[in-house]
């Protein structure tokens, strides 16, 4: 029977298939590293950071790109199956709670002494949950303001230092150009939350309450500002902001420092400069983001993983990362051999960091993130009523907090 023969063939293929897919064994020690980086950043890792470590420790670094949002799922799958193939991972500091809650990471409290003394104290605390240290810092991050010097000068404008000046710049540019030229990362999710958080704190508010005076002030200001912003703001997040700055859709916008290399080097926009940004009516605040390292529960080679973390925290690597990528350093002593063109940008970053604020690690962050974004869409984009909408979201947020505390 042909049909029977087909079945035979089928079973043969399904027998061969796992054998064919099995990975070849490798004799050299390998360290599997997961990070979520832009291509520019990977390039520096591949060419300037990893090879040195491989030489020092006689091993091979296998690296994988996983987006911050996907990693908890990946890790959960591996830990549940008892097949942890990742030795060390880097994760966004706002995505840590879920890993601790699901018990997916090693407790690193015993190795706290590994963290060098030069590391800024605030950075250490990001990785601490319930008194235990689960994550180790290696990269703080803060948004700086990028501006197109040439275009602003043409319009007779200076980079704004306050909210009023920001509004003025946005207005004048819109009048002169027929469309808004100031960018805001309004795409939604993390990028928008980071910007909103900064505006609210600089107005003296507590973002997690959603409806205190500061929140009201910040939302009211953004509602006024929004019509004068570039229409591309709605598509702007960290990646697209670089493109919009480069193709002159934005003359002024905040973004993370990794854009410096892309905008000024890859896209060749020398006329774009940076500064630390503007202050709000109550204070100057810049949200601190960043990444920390963690070790998955059941990882194969913890010693090598710890060595890798220590390597990243070393002065030498921190300096390289600052020099090549403009990444701020976790150490207060890493400045050496920076390329001249990067120096002014690095100064902007350092100044912004001085006004840094940390966001709290709360279990209901995802829900908060979502409500804040919805409030933004309804008040700022659709020009809704500030007080009424914020009160409604405050109530909803309180309800969610109660659900979590049960």
């Amino acid at each position: 029977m042909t049909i029977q023969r087909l079945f035979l063939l089928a079973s043969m293929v399904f027998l061969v298939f796992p054998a064919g897919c099995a990975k070849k064994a490798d004799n050299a020690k390998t360290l599997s590293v997961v990070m979520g980086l832009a291509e520019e950043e990977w390039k520096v890792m591949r060419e300037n950071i990893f090879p040195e470590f491989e030489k020092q420790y006689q091993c091979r670094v296998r690296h994988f790109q996983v987006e911050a949002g996907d990693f908890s799922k990946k890790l959960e799958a591996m830990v549940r199956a008892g097949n942890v193939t990742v030795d060390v991972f880097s994760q966004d500091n706002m995505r840590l709670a879920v890993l601790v809650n699901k018990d997916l990471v090693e407790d690193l409290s015993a190795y706290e002494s590994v963290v060098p003394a030069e590391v800024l104290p605030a950075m250490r605390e990001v990785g601490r949950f319930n008194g235990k240290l689960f994550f180790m810092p290696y990269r703080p991050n803060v948004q700086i303001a990028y501006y197109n010097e040439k275009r602003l000068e043409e319009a007779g404008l200076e980079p704004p230092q306050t909210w009023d000046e920001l509004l003025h710049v946005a207005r004048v540019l819109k009048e002169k150009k027929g469309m808004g030229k100031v960018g805001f990362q309004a795409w939604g999710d993390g990028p928008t939350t980071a910007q909103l958080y900064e505006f609210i704190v600089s107005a003296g508010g507590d973002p997690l309450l959603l409806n205190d005076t500061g929140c009201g002030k910040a939302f009211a200001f953004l509602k006024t500002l929004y019509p004068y912003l570039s229409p591309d703001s709605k598509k702007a997040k960290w990646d697209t902001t670089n493109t919009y700055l480069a193709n002159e859709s934005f003359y002024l916008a905040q973004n993370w420092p990794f854009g410096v290399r892309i905008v000024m080097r890859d896209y060749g926009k020398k006329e774009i400069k940076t500064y630390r940004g503007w202050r709000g009516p109550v204070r100057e605040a810049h949200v601190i983001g960043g990444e920390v390292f963690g070790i998955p529960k059941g990882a194969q080679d913890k010693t090598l993983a710890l060595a890798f973390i220590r390597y990243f925290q070393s002065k030498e690597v921190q300096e390289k990362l600052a020099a090549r990528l403009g990444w701020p350093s976790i150490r207060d002593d890493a400045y050496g051999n920076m390329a001249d063109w990067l120096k002014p940008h690095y100064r902007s970053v350092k100044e912004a960091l001085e006004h840094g604020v940390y966001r709290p690690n709360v279990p209901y962050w995802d829900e908060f993130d979502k409500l804040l974004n919805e409030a933004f869409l309804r008040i700022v984009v659709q020009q809704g009523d500030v007080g009424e909408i914020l009160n409604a979201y405050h109530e909803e947020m309180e309800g969610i907090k109660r659900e979590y505390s049960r």
Partner: protein
Amino acid sequence: MKRPLTSVAFAFTLLALAVYTLFPVYLMVKIATGDPSDIMRERPGLLLHSFTLEHFRNVLSSGYLVAPFEKSLSVAVLTALGALLLSVPAAYAISRFPKNVQYGFLLLIFVTRMFPEVGIALPVSVAFIRWNLLDTVPGLVLAHLIRVLPVTCWILLNTFETIPKDLEEAARVDGAGKLAALRHIVLPLALQGIAVAAIFSFLMSWDEFTYALYLCLSEPTLPLKVYYYMNRGNIFETATYSLIVALPVVVVTYALQKYLRSGYLAGAVKG
């Protein structure tokens, strides 16, 4: 086409069609080979103003081509094989059933096409987390089959239906066994349809994005890597990578376009 006015209008229509179809492809080439200072402007211009291979060098040296290519290729090949193994015997059998049974099977296969992929991908990814099938080739093949099987069944059913039962029976009357009848009469006649089904399932798997996005986290396929470049790279590398991913498929589709005959879709209307 005799009146000059009509033929001018006709020529103009063809030209507009050509521009509409080719422009996005042209644009990819323009960006992939364009100098940043030329592309990054408020008014980018429509013609090619510069030429550089820098972006190709960057993409080729990134080491992001081989592994995703291997993954996409092995998934697509295994999906095509799996689809044939499951649907060739099934489609043959269904075509030989009485009409009312056939209708039931058809309905079942058709309904599977209606489920939204995001709806299936979610529970599948939750289950795959448990079974440790995330990021694996077999896992993605299993998911791609969900999408591919209804289509291959459709094509193969049409193929087998066009082969008259009488032919098969005549062969058996002549003394050939059922096996021989299948091998010497049915299979040769169905071969083209089977090839089309294989090509279609390969292309569908190659192009697939939704399941891959849910199921591949650290070992991406080519479409996922394009998405990565869109989100994390610069626009030049995105265009370059896209071009590299698209080219082989365009060539394959072009070479096989005679199989994209409307006749294969025609029979489906009867169902």
